């Protein structure tokens, strides 16, 4: 009987080819959208984590309360000592001390007079230690446009757009004018070793990156850091894991009444990130559900049309003595076969498109120009193919087809035999 059904299905193109195309299109969109949204969300979250929030972030309580103002006067004073303890107590986390600061970058001419000036967002990172991961974390090597990475104290990177605006080239000297953590005026000279472009408007607008040792020196912050960021070694944020670390750290290190005691925040505790984490974790389910509902409606209608077209066949089968339940079940078997075939085709096509987007990306720089959101939006969107993309299409592909057929089949099932037989003769 299965062989008989299969032959009918293969030979009757309107029963096989059209539904398979419908399923394949739906599955292709589901798989592609899942990979695309996963890529977008994860990129946004990880980009923000790498440059700004960390997966975990330790600050003083007072600094955390005013973090948007970057109050370096409230920085962690014995950051080096805390780093040592963190590496001992939480060795599975990669810790990185950082100082964020703002200031004016002044470019002198040959006579030492100001030739150009521009406001800069500064970032002090560990660029010179042997075991630092900051260079890789911020993808600095690949982001280099001109010059090289800082190799010694006194060197800094400028964002390419900023350097073009200031007409500064690698090897030129610039002066940072800012304020020390004690409120005094800070003036510090850097030699531009290279320029970088991150593909993110918020970072490319006016960034200066220097070794944290230089920044501590420039801002009069010996052994201090505005924040210590922690990164999971697997490379991706996990909110449950982060919550566990947060509990352990705050219980041990944080004193509620002391505004200068360190406090740990998760990535999801930071501005605007909670919703993104929520969406990233549930996006697969949301996309699948939306496509499942949409496809069920489409396939329900396709099933109804197909069922109407097959009234004759169903009438004959009833007259020959096939039970309604058996006919209904065979329609469901057919829908499983169609669903499986359409899903395989749709998954292959969807993965192909996702692979193209993952490999080559889509430049949306024109739309993110001027963006200053707390969550960093990449200028180049890339899909991310995950294990789920290989099987997620089967949920809308097979289930929707079966639901569509089951719903449309009920209509036929409810008609009495004589009615079907009558329709058979017309």
């Amino acid at each position, binding site marked *: 009987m299965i062989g*008989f059904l299969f*032959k009918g299905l293969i030979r009757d193109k309107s029963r096989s080819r059209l539904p398979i195309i419908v399923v394949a299109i739906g599955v292709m969109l589901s798989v592609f959208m899942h990979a695309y949204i996963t890529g977008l969300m994860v990129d946004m979250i990880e980009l923000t984590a790498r440059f700004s929030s960390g997966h975990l972030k330790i600050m003083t309580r007072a600094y955390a309360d005013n973090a948007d103002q970057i109050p370096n006067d409230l920085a962690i004073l014995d950051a080096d000592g805390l780093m040592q303890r963190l590496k001992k107590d939480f060795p599975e986390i990669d810790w990185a001390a950082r100082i964020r600061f703002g200031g004016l970058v002044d470019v002198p001419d040959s006579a030492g007079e100001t030739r150009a000036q521009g406001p800069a967002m500064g970032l002090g990172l560990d660029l010179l230690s042997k075991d630092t991961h900051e260079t890789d974390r911020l993808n600095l090597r690949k982001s280099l446009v001109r010059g090289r990475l800082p190799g010694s104290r006194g060197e800094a990177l400028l964002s390419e757009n900023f350097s073009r605006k200031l007409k500064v080239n690698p090897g030129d000297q610039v002066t940072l004018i800012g304020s020390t953590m004690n409120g005094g005026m800070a003036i510090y000279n850097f030699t531009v070793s290279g320029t970088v472009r991150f593909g993110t408007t918020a970072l490319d607008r006016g960034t200066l990156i220097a070794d944290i040792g230089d920044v501590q020196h420039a801002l009069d912050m010996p052994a201090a850091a505005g924040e210590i960021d922690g990164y999971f070694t697997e490379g991706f944020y996990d909110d449950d894991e982060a919550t566990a670390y947060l509990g352990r750290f705050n219980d041990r290190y944080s004193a509620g009444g002391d505004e200068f005691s360190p406090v740990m925040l998760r990535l999801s505790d930071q501005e605007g990130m909670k919703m993104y984490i929520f969406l990233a974790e549930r996006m697969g389910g949301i996309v699948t559900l939306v496509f499942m509902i949409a496809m069920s409606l489409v396939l329900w209608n396709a099933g109804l049309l197909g069922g109407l077209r097959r009234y004759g066949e169903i009438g*004959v089968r009833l007259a020959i*003595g096939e039970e*309604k339940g058996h006919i209904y079940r065979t329609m469901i078997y057919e829908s499983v076969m169609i669903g499986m075939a359409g899903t395989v085709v749709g998954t292959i096509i969807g993965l192909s498109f996702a692979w193209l987007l993952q490999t080559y990306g889509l430049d949306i720089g024109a739309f993110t120009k001027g963006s200053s959101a707390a969550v960093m939006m990449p200028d180049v969107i890339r899909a991310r193919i995950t294990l789920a993309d290989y099987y997620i299409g089967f949920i809308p592909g097979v289930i929707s087809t079966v639901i569509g057929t089951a719903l449309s089949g009920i209509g036929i099932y409810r008609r009495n035999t*004589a009615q079907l037989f009558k329709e058979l003769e017309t």
Partner: protein
Amino acid sequence: MEHPPIIQIEHLTKSFPMGKASFTALTGISLNFGKGEFAGFIGPSGSGKTTLLNIIGSLDVPTSGEVLVLGNSIGGLTARQAARLRKENLGFIFQSYNLLAVHTVFENVEFPLLLLNYAASERRRMVMDALEWVGLTDKIKSKPPQLSGGECQRVAIARAMVKKPSLVLADEPTANLDAANSHNILQTMVKLNRELNTTFLFATHDDKVIGYLRRKVYLLDGKIDKDEVFPN
């Protein structure tokens, strides 16, 4: 009645709802048919012959009265029991053949045997026998759209006869055929009726069919007008 009755109809009435009222298609029908009869319901459109055939075929149920087919009370059968009766004991031949267009002649004839779970070798033997009865052994791989109307109806006869049913119900089987093909088909059915002792019941108003019937039940406005039996 020379044959033992396989169909017993007593005071059959069939009504269909039409809005708030109802339309009575059959009134007070009482008939018996024995094994091996070659009989037909004759009458104009609307006389109730197809409704009567549908009830005998367990495709519909009486509103009142009793219809026994091979000992089964049609009004009391569940859908599953009715399907089983059709599957095991009844064959249908339709005006418009109703073959499965994407399946070959062999597969169309084989289908009732699949429902009866015959083994593949047994199915093949029975299908070939049925196609030999109707003279279509050379067309087993053809599909219905490749056949003439007469050939299609012969395939439909083979499909109805392949399981050697006790009763074959034919609703206007020659309506779409020319005279030559109609006679050919009818001669085939007469031959099968004689050789296999299968009961044939027709619903028709075609004179060609009427000429072959050995019992003619005339219906008019849902009632029996005449019931004539002719010698072999």
